[in-house]
């Protein structure tokens, strides 16, 4: 076995480390801590954050890659050309359960009629039994409903048990501060806790109740059906989460160096530096975004086609392609944030504390790094969380146009792309589409709600638009 660190893996793990470091910093600074507490006290944002964290967990599980050592005759070590992730290992059974073609969710038979030979040797056209889905049933017609109900029920109970365990854990945690178990439970039920724990608990319980039956049914059925080549749709949807996350997170991150550096420089120095930087970003933003991205992606494609021996495995190739896509999205998308940072810097540089620093003879670089950059970070943060969801939606469109991620890679875009043809079949193949829809809307909605929470906490002006119905008792206005 050999661990493989793909480029996007590296970027994702670095990103996770950076987020942890930021959390550490938040903990140390009273100011930042208060603002983030405001985010976490907002029930909608807190729940959305929890959902995002769950998606992040899937992503990280899918970002530990390895290649298996293959047995060879002469004892030398040869590695499998397929790169597997920890998530693949977790879902190994589902990946191995490969059927021939389409099958309905929880189906036991194929979706298309085939010529089948029965015991007497006569050929008739019927739906073939699936090789794996419901294969343990002797007579699906009579046993299927019972079996599915029993397994789903077990899963539901398991989910409920997990939710109750979680509730107990939370109450146990609260017990000390709320004076015993009973008042803690009462406070939790009446939403009288510092953080909206009741809402978080309900969110997690909903997730557990959904996941329970799915996990219970997974070993013997294709819960979301199979696609044209017989692959489990649920596995594809789960693996698409990573692609979406990588695109959403890394692309915004790639915009930051340009946006912040150039924005601060333009705002601080003014004059011809400002003019030049403004010219560059106006030029960039004058080209319709999709066209610019398409042009850059085409060039990367040409470069890859010209240098096919740069990569050892297909996974490395499609991975680097995705990283390039992120960089391109970053390179073409920094104008908006740069404009904001420039405007903010123009305002900041006239403030007394910056003037005082100048009077004390502090150097330009030091002023920009110590006094200006930290004070534009709230803009950066708001932009990062806001563009995360936009980019996930954008990926789908780009993949549809043909300039998105590699077709070999699982992504919501490629799922939707295939779904287009499937939805025009008769009878309609809807489950791939439904799975992509469910997961994508879940992820994007959570990201949007979380972003709103962050924006409201960091930008007082946006709180005007907040509905009063959402305000919790005890939470500050």
């Amino acid at each position, binding site marked *: 076995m050999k661990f493989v660190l793909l480029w996007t893996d590296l970027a994702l793990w670095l990103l996770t480390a950076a987020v942890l470091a930021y959390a550490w910093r938040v903990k140390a600074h009273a100011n930042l801590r208060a603002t983030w507490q405001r985010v976490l006290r907002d029930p909608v944002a807190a729940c959305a954050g929890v959902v995002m964290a769950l998606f992040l967990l899937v992503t990280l599980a899918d970002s530990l890659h390895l290649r298996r050592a293959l047995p060879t005759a002469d004892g030398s070590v040869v590695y499998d050309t397929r790169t597997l992730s920890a998530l693949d290992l977790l879902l190994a059974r589902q990946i191995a359960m490969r059927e021939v073609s389409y099958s309905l969710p929880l189906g036991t038979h194929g979706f298309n009629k085939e010529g089948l030979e029965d015991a007497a040797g006569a050929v008739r056209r019927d739906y073939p039994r699936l090789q794996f889905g419901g294969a343990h049933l002797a007579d699906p017609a009579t046993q299927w409903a019972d079996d599915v109900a029993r397994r789903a029920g077990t899963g539901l109970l398991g989910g409920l048990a997990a939710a109750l365990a979680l509730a107990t854990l939370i109450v146990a945690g609260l017990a000390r501060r709320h004076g015993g178990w009973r008042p803690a439970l009462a406070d939790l039920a009446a939403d009288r806790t510092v953080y909206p724990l009741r809402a978080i608990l309900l969110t997690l319980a909903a997730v557990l109740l959904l996941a329970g039956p799915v996990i219970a049914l997974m070993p013997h059925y294709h819960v979301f059906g199979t696609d044209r080549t017989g692959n489990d749709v649920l596995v594809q949807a789960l693996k698409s989460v990573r692609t979406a996350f990588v695109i959403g997170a890394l692309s915004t991150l790639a915009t930051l160096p340009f946006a912040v550096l150039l924005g601060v420089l333009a705002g601080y120095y003014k004059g011809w530096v400002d003019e030049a930087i403004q*010219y*560059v970003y*106006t*030029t960039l*933003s*004058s*080209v*319709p975004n*999709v*066209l*610019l991205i*398409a*042009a*850059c992606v*085409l*060039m990367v*494609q*040409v*470069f890859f086609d*010209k240098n096919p021996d740069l990569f050892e495995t297909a996974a490395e190739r499609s991975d680097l392609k995705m990283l390039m896509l992120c960089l391109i999205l970053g390179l073409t998308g920094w104008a908006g944030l740069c404009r904001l940072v420039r405007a903010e810097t123009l305002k900041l540089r006239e403030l007394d504390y910056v003037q005082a620093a100048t009077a004390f003879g502090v150097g330009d670089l030091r002023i920009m790094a110590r006094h200006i950059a930290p004070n534009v970070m709230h803009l950066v943060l708001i932009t990062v969380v806001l563009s995360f*969801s936009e980019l996930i*939606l954008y990926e*789908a*469109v780009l993949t*549809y*146009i*043909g*300039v998105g991620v590699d077709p070999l890679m699982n992504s*919501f875009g490629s799922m*939707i792309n295939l*779904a*287009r043809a499937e*939805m*025009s079949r008769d009878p*309609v193949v809807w489950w791939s*589409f439904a799975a992509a*829809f469910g997961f*994508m*809307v879940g992820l*994007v*909605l959570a990201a*949007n*709600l979380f972003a*709103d929470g962050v924006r409201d906490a960091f930008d007082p*002006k*946006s709180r*005007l*638009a907040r*509905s*009063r*119905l*959402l305000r919790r008792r005890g939470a500050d206005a």
Partner: protein
Amino acid sequence: MLGFVLRRLGYGLAILVGVNLFTFILFFSVNTPDDMARLNIGGKRVTQEQIEKWKTERGYDKPLYYDAGKAGAQRVTHTILWERSVSLFALDFGRSDARQAINIGHEIKVRMGVSLQLALPLFILQVIVSVAFALLLVFFRHSRIDFWGVVLCVLMLSISSLFYIIVGQFLFARLLKLVPMNGFAPGLDAAKFLALPILLSLLSRLGGEARLYRAMFLEEMGKDYVRTARAKGLSEGRVLGRHVLRNALIPIITSAGSYLPYVFLGSLVFESFFGIPGLGAFVIEAITGQDFAIVRTMVFLGALLYIASNALIDIAYTWVDPRVRLQ
């Protein structure tokens, strides 16, 4: 005024030069004319002779940036960069690299008309519907209608436009059979082909737009002139319709104006999904066919339209707010 126009023109020209230079370097440094020839001729074994012929036919048989073999000004003018740039600025777009029969300029003229038929009604409806919806939410602000309206907006903007298209096509064209699935016909027949894409595009953008406008209106609502208007005894509808709407027009124009280039360029996704032969579909064909001449032309055209629409937005500012002067 004249100074303003001249400065705007000069800046626009500078941006166009920048865009042109940028795309040229992007395309030709990675992808030399030889590569393009090989790609377009196709097949495994391409002779140098074929490549030379391909290049001569398309005028790519010159150095890229600088010709040391020539004398004087010809060193710069006898290059691909110079010739391509000059023809672009003269709006002579030449022919497609892949298919010589396609005259890009002619194609753009025809297809832009088609794109306009889809995008212009859409643009107008978009502004009206989003503003109306946002005003409705603001009228009922801090009530349940507002709350659920915002929830609806967030939900709508979390759904990819591709989902709207696929579900919409399935529902209206396949199940209800109200409109054809896709295709296009010139003249009045176009209406039945365009109805569904317009409706779906409207829906897919409504969430984001309405929420944005709602926030703009709410910001205006906190200002003094609103209180004065109310103190004069004006009804809430009148305050919103006459005072708030007018004052919020500037940010609305800015935001709606950013769509203006796409009114002419068309929508890539919607046109290709509905089989509408507009500019958007043209671009997708060019991208999938790796036709760089067309992509480069469209990038240039996009920048041109962006500059033009920005000028239009500035003029619109003076029109809605007499205090704004062009200078």
